[in-house]
């Protein structure tokens, strides 16, 4: 059938695609900025000795982990403003959704890291008179974080892939730009292929990094958590 590929029209609009990629990175970075501390907090609450706290935070985490992010995004974009009167633009709705959504996943990464530290470390910290927060900050987390790095980076990759959803609420990320260009140039094959390539260029090196760190940790005899 001999389709004639024509990448020229795409490369003419590469600046638009790159602007989209920048917005993709912006939303990913923003979600990390809020999602990580929120995730740490959620993990600590889920490990609380108070059963009601542990259970309710656990249900909340699982809810955000097991419902599709597109449903969450639509809920925050369309439903929340009607319920609360909070103004939502596409960027704000996306930031809120992905901060909360990724925090639920980060919570589990943190929890896995924390519980992987031997009980003796808690005991040694307490035996020299540290309180809970000091033990956590000085003894447990520094060790846990190292084991968490691969799982953590994997979550970052997943997060960046998930942010493509912001295109559905018209935030001008890479996918949104690609879709626009595809429609204006009638060259969807080239445009979507290049867009996929751009995602790949960012994500693949990160994946390789994950594998390398995992191997290195395995070599020093340290486990990693997932």
């Amino acid at each position: 059938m001999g389709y004639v590929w024509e990448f020229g029209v795409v490369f003419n609009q590469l600046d638009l695609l790159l602007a989209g990629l920048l917005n993709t990175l912006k939303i990913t970075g923003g979600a990390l900025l809020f999602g990580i501390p929120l995730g740490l907090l959620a993990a600590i609450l889920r490990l609380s000795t108070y059963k009601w706290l542990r259970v309710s935070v656990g249900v909340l985490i699982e809810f955000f982990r097991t419902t599709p992010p597109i449903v969450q995004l639509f809920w925050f974009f369309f439903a929340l403003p009607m319920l609360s009167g909070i103004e939502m633009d596409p960027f704000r709705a996306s930031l809120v959704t992905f901060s909360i959504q990724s925090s639920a996943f980060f919570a589990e990464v943190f929890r896995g890291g924390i519980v992987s530290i031997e009980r003796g470390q808690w005991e040694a910290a307490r035996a020299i008179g540290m309180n809970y927060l000091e033990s956590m900050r000085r003894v447990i987390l520094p060790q846990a974080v190292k084991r968490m790095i691969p799982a953590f980076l994997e979550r970052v990759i997943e997060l960046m892939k998930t942010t493509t959803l912001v295109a559905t609420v018209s935030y001008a990320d890479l996918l949104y730009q690609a879709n626009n260009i595809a429609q204006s140039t009638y060259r969807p094959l080239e445009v979507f292929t290049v867009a996929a390539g751009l995602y790949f260029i960012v994500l693949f090196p990160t994946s390789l990094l994950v594998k390398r760190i995992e191997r290195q940790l395995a070599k020093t005899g340290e486990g990693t958590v997932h």
Partner: protein
Amino acid sequence: MEHVWDFQTVFASWSLLSQGLFNTLKLGLLTLITGMFFGFFVGLGRYSRSSWVNFPAGVFVEVFRNTPALVQIMWFYFAFPIISPFDIDAFAAAALGLGLNTTAFCAEIFRGGIQSIHRGQWEAGKALGMTYREQVWRIILPQAVVRMIPAFMNRVVELMKMTSLASVIAFGELMHQAKTISTYHFNPIESYTVVALLFFLVISPFAFLVYHLENRFRK
């Protein structure tokens, strides 16, 4: 601002919802089965000593793991028909995107599971005079499968969530039905809440299982 809850209109649209739920399960189940089936061979292929086999397998896996599923679905819906010899409707595009995506992830699970088995197990099989296929089926897989169960359950969770992406290309799964209902009755709060809960009900048992299996394996 006082919101007047209107779940009535959502439940009145239950035939739309049940149709959506059916389509969600259809898409999820189909892609899960095909993904696991082909993933097994791709996973073994990555383990192959011949670079004619392991290199393409590796490229396939990395491409589908390192690009967004939504881009894959949209590629199959908008781009692929241009070069495809057969017609692609929304369901076919979603099934292709999610099926290949799941194949790639399952291949990694198979490969990881097989790799986690000590080399001595292969050698013991070999020493008994087993063929490669016998070693895989009788020695390696029975041990590896147990370790792979949590990862597969996790895949089920992720895949079921990903089926909602098909709404972007207007395949009538749950999320798409919610959009339809909310536009028609102007009740986004209720429609999206109900659909979120439906997804939660379908998916959370698997997540719960993962949680328990992982705790069990950690010991």
